[in-house]
């Protein structure tokens, strides 16, 4: 029996969906957890993808930071667990 923790991924696995939503490479963006104020790159967030959508949790306190659901009616994005997001400067590469 696989536990929820065995099925846990990280923000790297959500990179495609995040880039689709934000229009930028987001795994190096910095997010501040609204619950505990820990600052993490999005690649380090814990990702749970077992349900109908994606849930991104803080690696320090495991509070829900981002919820994404892609449905036939459109993509729903709930970011209320993120106090602040800092996107990297556009790269010159």
């Amino acid at each position, binding site marked *: 029996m696989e536990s929820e923790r065995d099925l*846990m991924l990280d923000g790297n696995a959500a990179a*495609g969906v995040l880039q689709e939503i934000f229009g930028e490479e987001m795994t190096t963006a910095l997010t501040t957890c609204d619950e505990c104020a820990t600052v993490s790159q999005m690649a380090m967030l814990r990702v749970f993808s077992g349900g109908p959508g994606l849930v991104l949790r803080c690696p320090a306190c495991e509070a829900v930071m981002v919820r994404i659901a892609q449905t036939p009616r459109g993509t729903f994005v709930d970011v209320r667990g993120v106090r602040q997001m800092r996107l990297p400067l556009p790269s010159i590469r």
Partner: protein
Amino acid sequence: MKRTLEWQIATVKAIRQETANVKTLTLALLKWVPHRPGQHYDIRLTAEDGYSAQRSYSIGSEPERHGEIDITVEPIRDGEVSPFLDDVVVVGDRFEVRGPIGGYFVWEASDGGPLLLVAGGSGIVPLMAMARHRAAVGATVPARLLYSSRSFDDIIYRADLDALANRDGLQVFHTLTRSQPEGWQGFARRIDDRMVAEVNKPFGPKAQVFICGPTALVETAADAAEAAGVAAERIKTERFGPTGA
């Protein structure tokens, strides 16, 4: 790099059996762009009734190989995408992909080193792209790979790793956790603090560390690298779980 992610059609150019249940697919891409080693592609399969499933696969090949990428597939029980890629796909098949994706778990020769790579099972794939890239550009960055597999026959890319070790100075340390062939000289237990410290010894705190594998291995190896004095920002991790589902 501001670039809209667009789906494109990939054509299966070759299929190679890596181990009894792991295969590498070479995908030809009309809109190929060079990736950064460690990046992945999303693959989308759509059924006739419109139902679609999407998963991400790390690129195993080096960006110096133009026009095509390798992905390596380990079938996941009850998965939606991997059984198709593992069982059904034949050369000439086409499906949708988008990428390259990701900017965190990436290493290019210009990033320097010394480089400590730690992998468990199919977590070797993105690290292989880094090792092949290092060899393709003739980089002299010292590099060590600690790779955990269940048994000798489960070692993915075994011959290619031997070649990288012999020709390109990649130092490869295998550990076999479940069974070992007679006379096995390598490690024979799960990756632990002592093993990481031993492999990283010549690099010390200067190491740039990339760890990819199941969560338990990733957390053990990351803690061990920190205990060996490597600053947290020099340790990058990627957890794979059912990404291949």
